[in-house]
């Protein structure tokens, strides 16, 4: 066993079940102790951290939301000063968009996609670890700045010239711009991993039309990330260049233009909404199929809708700019393109309704959240059609109507499915069930609290309340609706507290889940809960769209992967035919060290452009360490 050449290597086909799983667990597990934790490249370890960190940021962002609702509960309150309020709404938006919504969706993908496509680890596991550290450091950097009173205060959109050096001479806008860069790096890395995992690491036989809908959703999302993020990367880098080295990208007195920022920002910012929403739809499809006890009707329609939504989302950024004085005819065309996105979104909803109609629904908490999602999201979608209309938008743009609209879309369209997903996949991740009774309370508090908090905002906007105002006078008729909204917000917040209680309680006391507690159909349920480090002892072979329903508990498997090295099986793109075995990286400290070096580089560059020079060598050193060839056993022969 000690000296091996390829043909003599210990393969999984010569070991019996118990031997194999012990052996695989030994070579795939994360080393114990602190060092092991820092070195881990296992997608489940990284994914779990990613999910927890994103939820920690949700908690922080939610606390800020409650602070704002207290300030706005009545007219002329002095609970927060103008300066604090502006920082808080900026931090709330930035945290929710960049540190919670996108990362949490990618985090679920990091955990679930390899399991759902039946492989042992994500593609590029070290990049995955690096991505998590960058996300963590970027988020902490933003929040530490905020706690030291240099948090950004120019809005999560940071429009120039307000965010230019002239009007924000402090470091606040730089902090925001660099935080963007951190999250871009993290998000892009995960997007690349997901695409490659889905294209090359699928279990044999999982042809394109057998990929689970959640995986399809994450694939489309990853492409959106790859095309949208560079746009804000250009925008934020140009901003920081304007601020630090006196370039003039956005300065109209030197031939720049403030609207350049808005075009770049919204060319990212609109797809961003779908980067958050499309994973939500993937979660809905997964949950719905399981609890309706039948596959989602119109599988190809749903996939085409996802792809269509992805394409259209790049063609309508201008509807955020209808009141900037753009030519009217062009604006009219963007109205039509914006509204057209209702068609693929609608088709998906029709497919889900039909699934529920024909199914035999089992009403457990995850399904409740999906039903809440449909009720709420449709309102958000329809108010989105209103916002897409130029004349209506000239009234509601930058008012509380828009605040209501996008919270209906983002919370209804993404957070409700996400909480459903927490209830749905918690047993897989933790090995224990969440309490169903608390889950029902959680749902009703969330559903009622959400609607009481956000529905009145439609009216508030129409009766003249602009966004981003820290106070208003008593004679503006806005007090009652604001008070109602604040009460709703607190109820909504309580629902999250209940979720936290449920998670903490169930981690210790919850009923043991077993492999497949919901009797679901996709591959992640084909392994134990929580899954072992190697995910699957033997790689399954997929012959149906719903393998666990069609083949029962005994899936066919392939044999022949190494049992003494980390190896994954590569398959072809369309037909998922086995192609070759590929080594998967060992744990390594270098991704963490590279992330630290990169963080020093990024933060240093806020204070001196010279950081670009002295910050590079440490990054180079750590990257060399990361990629240093570590010699496989064959090479030593």
């Amino acid at each position: 066993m000690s000296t091996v050449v390829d043909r003599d290597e210990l393969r999984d086909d010569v070991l019996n079940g118990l031997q194999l799983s012990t052996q695989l667990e030994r070579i795939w597990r994360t080393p114990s102790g602190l060092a092991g934790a820092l070195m881990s490249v296992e997608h489940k370890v990284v994914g779990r951290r990613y999910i927890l960190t994103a939820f920690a940021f949700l908690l922080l962002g939610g606390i800020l939301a409650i602070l704002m609702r207290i300030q706005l509960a009545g007219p002329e309150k002095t609970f927060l000063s103008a300066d604090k309020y502006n920082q808080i709404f900026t931090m709330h938006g930035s945290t929710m968009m960049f540190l919670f919504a996108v990362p949490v969706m990618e985090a679920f993908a990091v955990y679930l996609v390899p399991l759902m496509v039946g492989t042992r680890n994500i593609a590029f596991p070290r990049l995955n670890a690096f991505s998590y550290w960058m996300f963590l450091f970027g988020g902490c950097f933003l929040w530490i700045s905020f706690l030291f009173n240099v948090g950004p205060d120019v809005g999560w959109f940071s429009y120039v010239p307000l965010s230019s050096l002239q009007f924000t001479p402090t470091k606040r806008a730089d902090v925001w711009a660099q935080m963007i860069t951190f999250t871009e790096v993290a998000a892009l890395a995960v997007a690349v991993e997901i695409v490659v995992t889905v294209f090359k690491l699928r279990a044999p036989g999982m042809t394109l039309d057998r990929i689970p809908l959640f995986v399809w959703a994450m694939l489309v999302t990853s492409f959106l990330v790859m095309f949208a993020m560079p746009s804000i990367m250009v925008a934020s880098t140009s901003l920081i260049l304007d601020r630090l080295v006196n370039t003039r990208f956005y300065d109209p007195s030197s031939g720049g233009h403030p609207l350049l920022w808005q075009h770049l920002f919204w060319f990212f910012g609109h797809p961003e909404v779908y980067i958050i929403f499309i994973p939500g739809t993937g979660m809905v499809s997964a949950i719905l199929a399981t609890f309706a006890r039948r596959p989602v009707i119109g599988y190809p329609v749903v996939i085409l809708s996802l792809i269509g939504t992805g394409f259209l989302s790049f063609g309508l950024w201008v509807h955020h700019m209808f009141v900037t004085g753009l030519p009217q005819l062009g604006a009219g065309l963007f109205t039509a393109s914006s509204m057209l996105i209702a068609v693929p979104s609608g088709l998906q909803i029709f497919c889900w309704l039909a699934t529920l109609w024909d199914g035999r629904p089992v009403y457990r908490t995850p399904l409740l959240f999906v039903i809440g999602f449909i009720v709420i999201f449709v309102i958000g979608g329809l108010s989105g059609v209103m916002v897409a209309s130029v004349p209506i938008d000239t009234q509601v743009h930058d008012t509380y109507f828009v605040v209501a609209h996008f919270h209906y879309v983002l919370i209804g369209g993404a957070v409700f499915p996400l909480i459903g997903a927490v209830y749905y996949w918690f047993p897989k991740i933790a090995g224990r069930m969440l309490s169903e009774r608390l889950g029902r309370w959680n749902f009703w508090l969330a559903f009622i609290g959400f609607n009481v908090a956000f529905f009145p905002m439609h009216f508030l906007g129409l009766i003249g309340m602009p966004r981003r105002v820290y106070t208003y006078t008593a004679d503006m008729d806005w007090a009652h609706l604001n008070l109602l909204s604040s009460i709703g917000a607190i109820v909504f917040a309580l629902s999250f507290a209940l979720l936290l209680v449920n998670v903490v309680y169930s981690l210790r006391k919850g009923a043991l889940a077993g492999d497949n507690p919901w009797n679901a159909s996709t591959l992640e349920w084909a392994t134990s809960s929580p899954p072992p480090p190697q995910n699957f002892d033997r790689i399954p072979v997929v012959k149906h769209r719903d393998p666990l329903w069609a083949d029962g508990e005994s899936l066919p498997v392939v044999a022949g992967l190494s049992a003494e090295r980390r190896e994954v099986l590569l398959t072809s793109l369309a037909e998922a035919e086995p192609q070759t075995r590929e080594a998967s990286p060992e744990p390594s400290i270098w991704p963490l060290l590279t992330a630290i070096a990169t963080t020093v580089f990024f933060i240093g560059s806020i204070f001196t452009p010279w950081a670009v020079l002295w910050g590079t060598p440490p990054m180079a050193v750590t990257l060399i360490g990361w990629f240093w060839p570590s010699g496989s056993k064959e090479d030593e022969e």
Partner: protein
Amino acid sequence: MKVWVRRVLSVCATWPLAACAGRQSALDPQGLQSDQIRHTLFIFVGVAAVVWIAVVIVLGIAMMRRKRAAEQPLDLHEAFEQRTGRVILALGIATTVIVLGLSFVSYAGQRTVFAKDENALTLRIVGHQWWWEVHYEADSPHQSFVTANEIRIPTGQPVKVELESADVIHSFWVPSLTGKMDLIPGQKNKLQFTAKNAGVYRGQCAEFCGLQHAHMAFAVLALPPDEFGRWREHENQSADSPADQLGKQGEALFRARGCALCHNVSGTLAGGQLGPDLTHIGSRTTIAAGTLPNTPATLGAWISDPQHIKPGNLMPKMPLQSDELIAIIHYLEQLK
């Protein structure tokens, strides 16, 4: 039905409508454009309500349909699937038709809202952190004047505002009259509207513009045309010299204490250009860009500590004795 139940229901039914009658409400239009926008909005809301109710009803039926006990999954109903496919296709086409229909409704509304009139009264408005500079310009310089934070317009006549910014992006918005338009540095935007009825309509900056974004409001006073003409005639004139001793003392202090470095008062030596023009401050309804009503008490509070009322604004706190403050207030009150 119990009385109180009926009362609660009637309050619930009428209260949103009562709330519409605000001074800054898109639901209570007082202009041609805002009227058209509300019309378009109501069409959209109607369609949306029908669609949402339909979805919820279908969802409810799907959930409550009498069903056999839960079966083994994957018991597919091929016939159902085919029928459903046709229904989904039909619904997809229906959605497309509705969306295109609404696009045309929207475009028709847009054409009306943004229709141009060559004979419009033209004003030039410059946004500042956090106040509004309003220029009434005419061919002869004697017919041109500048005011701040208060716009008077004639009813029934189209008004065109040309929008510029002196610093960051602001947005000009008077929901009772029309939708908003941004004021962007380096760019000139235009917006046209017509007030149907006389009245005072509140407007407010709608684009986040920094620390005191919340306190960047203004008033639009729509006057009958002849009254507007008289006002305009009067506004052309320079400020009257103060009649009494206290007023004269105030005028002198206004210059001596540095107010005149930033503020202009036409016809006097005060020619500052940084702050709002104060030539006819006494006749304005509010001070500090709609933050407070214009009374001697609020004026005094503002002058003695502007940073307390609107932290971060560009007016510094001036050390003034109380008798000096009284004189300056008295002077400003006379600038009508």
